[in-house]
């Protein structure tokens, strides 16, 4: 048989990961030609918080918000020069260009998973070019390793745009337009080009939705035909339960010039799921993802959609006690300790990925302060469980730490919508 290269079907499946005009054509060829709902003429009807997506997203019968199926991260720098205080700072004209480009997208696409949702965030490095510092109401440290056993690279691009939609064609079209490769979006004029002001650095892509990882198991790091068909993520379980997600209010900055904004952490994580699927039993996977009691009592069916509106981690014994008595401790069980007055402090909008042809996870999370993320990650590290129990190691039987390697970490401020275009620190 002659070499055929990548088939059209698999090309469409991988379209967001591949990107570019030809990927867009492949999407449209595949029948993605239903009209895409357009945005409002009056943009003041849009939420003032960039991260206010939940009202625009579908929910399931348990009230769990379903994150869009497809995601794209675009990384930009403002300039190539030094970013220490006194360096070149954005002009008002440049701010207008950025704002025009973003408004063009908002007019073109409905604020929904059928249209387009996006945020723009800025790193600490971006703000360091200003003489003024960020106000105390913003907790935005440079990214750093968050466990003694990890050694991530710092992501310090000036800006990151997170685009999300159920429709791959929307992401690809919006990307092409932001980058100046097409003049219209959803048949409307693109009034400005982001790349006229910012230097494009990198794109990362991913997906989160029942069946999407099983369709994309032809990459390194995940055995073929192992991921359950009903799982939204490679590890085979659902997440983002209403009871385990912070509310948008909880993650919103409450005071100061960035009131109405939030902070975003994005880590790039490599998954190693051969052992997870080939060497752990179903019961061991449930123990490690949730807690041993969930496994013993068969509480999790399939991907765990039966759990309803919460992971049920409050029905698990205290994690340190379980580490001692079961010799294994669950991921959800550990994370349940990172709460404030019983409520979660972090809002996950993470997605899996085939970037670099490897199974990966872009762990994107929103929280009022980066410190809230650090607290949650410390809970996940399970250092207390490892210290309390000689049966639990740094990674061994310590949640799901064995199956992932954190490659990169980045922290960003998502200003409120009115200040999203190249903001000043105060």
């Amino acid at each position, binding site marked *: 048989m002659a070499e055929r290269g990548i088939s059209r079907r698999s090309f469409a499946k991988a379209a967001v990961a591949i990107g570019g005009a030809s990927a867009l054509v492949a999407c449209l060829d595949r029948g993605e030609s239903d009209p895409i709902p357009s945005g409002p003429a009056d943009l003041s009807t849009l939420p003032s918080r960039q991260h206010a997506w939940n009202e625009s997203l579908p929910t399931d019968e348990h009230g769990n918000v379903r994150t869009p199926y497809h995601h794209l991260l675009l990384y930009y720098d403002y300039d190539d020069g030094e970013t220490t205080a006194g360096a070149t700072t954005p002009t008002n004209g440049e701010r207008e260009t950025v704002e025009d480009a973003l408004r063009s997208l908002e007019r073109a696409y409905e604020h929904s998973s059928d249209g387009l949702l996006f945020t723009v965030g800025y790193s600490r490095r971006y703000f360091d070019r200003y003489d003024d510092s960020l106000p105390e109401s913003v907790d935005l440290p440079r990214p750093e390793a968050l466990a003694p056993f990890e050694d991530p690279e710092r992501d310090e691009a000036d800006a990151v745009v997170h685009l999300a939609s159920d429709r791959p064609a929307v992401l690809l079209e919006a990307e092409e337009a932001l980058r100046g490769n097409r003049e219209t979006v959803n048949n409307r004029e693109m009034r400005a080009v982001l790349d006229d002001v910012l230097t494009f650095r990198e794109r990362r892509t991913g997906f989160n939705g029942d069946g999407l990882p099983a369709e994309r198991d032809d990459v390194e790091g995940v055995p073929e035909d192992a991921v359950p068909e009903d799982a939204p993520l490679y590890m085979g379980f659902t997440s983002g339960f209403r009871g385990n997600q912070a509310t948008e209010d909880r993650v919103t900055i409450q005071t100061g010039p960035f009131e109405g904004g939030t902070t975003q952490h994005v880590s790039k994580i490599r998954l*190693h799921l051969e*052992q997870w699927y080939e060497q752990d039993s179903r019961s061991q996977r449930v123990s490690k993802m949730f807690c*041993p009691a969930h496994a013993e009592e068969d509480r999790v069916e399939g991907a765990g959609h039966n759990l309803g509106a919460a992971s049920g981690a409050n029905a698990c014994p205290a994690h340190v006690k379980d580490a*001692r008595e079961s010799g294994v401790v669950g991921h959800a069980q550990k994370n349940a300790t990172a709460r404030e007055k019983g409520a979660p402090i972090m809002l996950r909008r993470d997605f899996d990925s085939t970037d670099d042809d490897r199974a990966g996870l872009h762990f994107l999370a929103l929280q009022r302060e980066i410190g809230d993320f650090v607290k949650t990650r410390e809970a996940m590290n399970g250092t207390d469980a*490892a210290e309390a129990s*000689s049966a639990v*190691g*740094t990674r*061994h039987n310590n949640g799901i730490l064995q199956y992932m390697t954190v490659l990169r970490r980045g922290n960003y401020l998502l200003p409120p919508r009115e200040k999203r275009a190249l903001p000043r620190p105060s």
Partner: protein
Amino acid sequence: MNRRTFLRAGAVGAAGGLAGCSELFAQRSTARIPPVLDDRPEAVYRPTHIEGMEMIGTQTVGDRTVGLFYSFPHRFWTVAGDTNRVEIQDDHSVHLMASVWDRETETVIPVLDQPRFTIIQDDSVVDERRAWPMLSQNMGFHFGENVELDGDGTYTVEVEALPVGIETVGAFDGRFAAEHTAEFTLKYAESERNDVPFEEFPDTAGERAAADPMGMSMPLSYAPPVGELPGSPVTVGSVGDAEFVATVEDGALIVSPRTPYNGFSIPGFSLSAAVESVGFDDALTDAIGPTLGAHYRAELDGEPESGDTVTITVESPSSLSRHEGYETAFLERGSVSATL
């Protein structure tokens, strides 16, 4: 060190040696591995077969020496709440085993780490795995995993030596805190792998016994013989076929569990102990020392006297992964007591 093939010592090894090359050759396909016994004791038992191993080399990195070996891909068992049998995958080429010991005392450092094995050829990664901490009858504690190679050829194998997360005592105080990577060259030929001895025990498999440790010039993870422990050691009893020995030294209670027959130390338990006379009833922490090897310990507020009772409680099974013959042992919870 040169590459060498290591055979097990003792009668079993001798019998294997006499079985004849042709017979051994005929048995070297993983498809010939005998099935797991239907009726296994809930204790240490002699496995259906045992495989020899080939040394890839040793490397000294910082204060530790790493030895790397390979054998046929193995079936083994993981322990996390329950025990799961790991089957050999078609693409597995070898079982890689690393042992890490103190460069000076040659005390093996058996900890619940998962060092990464990275296999590289022509600058590209062929396979990459975090190895399981495991226990086998012929090698004792090691880090092991079945890995995939891309046929005959020369590979670079990187093995992490991770900072140990357990208490270091005596001359080991503060040691093994750094992270190192040991780099090995593996010249692999499937025909050479097939020369690794493979031996079945059709008549004795399933008996409450163990295959002998291999007789080779490398340190194994033995617990110290009872008589060599400090103080006045007592054998407290067995839980799940693990033998618990306790002693008191310099105000610390020391508990040293070991496998029956071969006397390997057993990390990975969650243990507590009580010595009522000094008001102690608490968890033990895992530790390693140059003479005590891997053990569990706690500081006591007072010095127990001869005649006081010590109780040791296994709160959770040892979470080590196991080679055949150990997968049904060290899983029970329970208490044993003895008089000091």
